[in-house]
Every structure is written in structure tokens, then in C-alpha cells.
């Protein structure tokens, strides 16, 4: 999979998460959102248990790293749950662009502050276009 490089992997991710969005919409016709994400995470755990068994988990990790993984998981799950709770109270055309447009900016700012990541002007322009694309699609 590494042969694809970061750009190829990102494009595969965009395509499959896009398909995930479509199937989520179809599932929501018959199920409530907690049921849909229960299926999502249920299948995901099964797939990852098989993957982990086949590929292994690499070097053993300490408590601090395990704590970091748990915090990352809690943040991801918290984001998903709050996203659906926001959707319950407002139109998707308002909630989706607000959240999808702003959270990547927060990641970029945190990565700059704490991971010392620096971006070229071309990449910054690309990131701006990516955020504009999501907002326009959602609002439109």
C-alpha cells in the first residue's frame, strides 16, 4: 500500500470515505444515526482485528503511547458523536460546511504550533482551495 505514496493513499481515502458517505445516507433511510455508526465501528473492529493478526502491531508500546492512542481515539469518536448531535439540531447545509471547513484549519494550526510543520505557499493555496471546495459543495 505504501507504493501508492501519500498522494495516492489520500486519493484512495477520499474515494472510499466518499463511498462511506453515500452508504451512510442510504443506511440512514432505514436506521437511526447511532445504529449506522454502530455498524461502521463494528465492521471496522472486525477488519482491524484480522489485519492486526496478519500484519502485527510493530514494536511494543509503553503506557504513555497507549494513552496517546486512547486520546486520539476519544477525540475522533467525540468529533463524530458531536457532529451527529449538531446535525440533529440544524440543517446539514449549515453544519457540514462549518465543521468540515474549520476542523482541517485547526489541525493545520496545531501541527504548525506543536509539530513544527511548515508549508510552502503552493501547499497553503491548495489547502485553501480544498476547504473552499468542501464549503461550496455543502452550501450549494
Amino acid at each position: 500500500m505504501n507504493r501508492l505514496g501519500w498522494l495516492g493513499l489520500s486519493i484512495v481515502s477520499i474515494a472510499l470515505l466518499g463511498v462511506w458517505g453515500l452508504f451512510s445516507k442510504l443506511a440512514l433511510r432505514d436506521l437511526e444515526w447511532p445504529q449506522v455508526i454502530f455498524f461502521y465501528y463494528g465492521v471496522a473492529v472486525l477488519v482491524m482485528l484480522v489485519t492486526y493478526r496478519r500484519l502485527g502491531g510493530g514494536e511494543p508500546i509503553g503506557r504513555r503511547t497507549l494513552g496517546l492512542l486512547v486520546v486520539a481515539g476519544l477525540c475522533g469518536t467525540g468529533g463524530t458523536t458531536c457532529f451527529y448531535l449538531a446535525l440533529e439540531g440544524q440543517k446539514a447545509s449549515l453544519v457540514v460546511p462549518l465543521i468540515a471547513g474549520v476542523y482541517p484549519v485547526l489541525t493545520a494550526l496545531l501541527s504548525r504550533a506543536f509539530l513544527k510543520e511548515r508549508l510552502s505557499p503552493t501547499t497553503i493555496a491548495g489547502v485553501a482551495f480544498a476547504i473552499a471546495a468542501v464549503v461550496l459543495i455543502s452550501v450549494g
Partner: protein
Amino acid sequence: MSWLAWAILSIAFWGTWGAISKVALARARWTRVVLVYYVGSLAILTIVMLARSSGADWPDRGILYGLLTGAAGVVGLVSLYRALDLAKASVIIPLTGMFPIVTAILSLIFLDESVSALQAVGIACAGIAVLLISRGD
């Protein structure tokens, strides 16, 4: 809580998730990172489901689409983590954050939804974004 408060919390959680995941991948293999993420999430969301949808129906069609949602979602997120392992979080998170555009295009094709002029501009912006980001760093 109001919808805006939930939205702000979601932004804070997801924005932090992107940066912390990058740090986690520097210390642990992606298989371990993704497995811990999903096991923890399943535990929490099972409680959420039991609290909010315990009396809900489970129609076959919904279950089928639910399973397909899981299959697409896990491969999509694994690809995201693999990409995050290879490049900057400040590039990968905004880039992969464009996935709603693919959902919009698929909805147009399979759900007979229409595309407005603004959305067409958005799709064009997505193409430009991929081009710029791929040449940027």
C-alpha cells in the same frame, strides 16, 4: 446544548484528532493506532446506541447498507492513516477532508440529486486543490 455548541465541540475534537494521530503514528505502528481507535470508538458508541436507539427497528436493507458503510469507512480511514504516516498532518487532513465532494458526486449519480452552480465551482476547486497540494511540498 445548542447545535452550534455541538458543532464547535466536533471541530475541536476532530481538529485535535488530526494532529494527535500524527504524533501517535511516530510512536506506534498504524495497525495498533487504528485498532485502538476503533475498539475504543465501538465501546463508546455502543453505549450511545443503547441510550438513544434501543427500541429502534433493524430492517434488513438498513443492516446491509450499515455493513457496507463499515467496509468502505475502515479502508478509507486506514488509507488516511497510512498517508498521515508519510506526509504532514497539515496537508493530509485538509486534503482527505474533501471526501464529501465524492459523496456529492455519487449522490448525483445514484440518488438522482442535482448539482448547483456553486457545487460545480466547488468540484473545480477540489481538482485545483489536489493539483496544488501534490506539487506544493
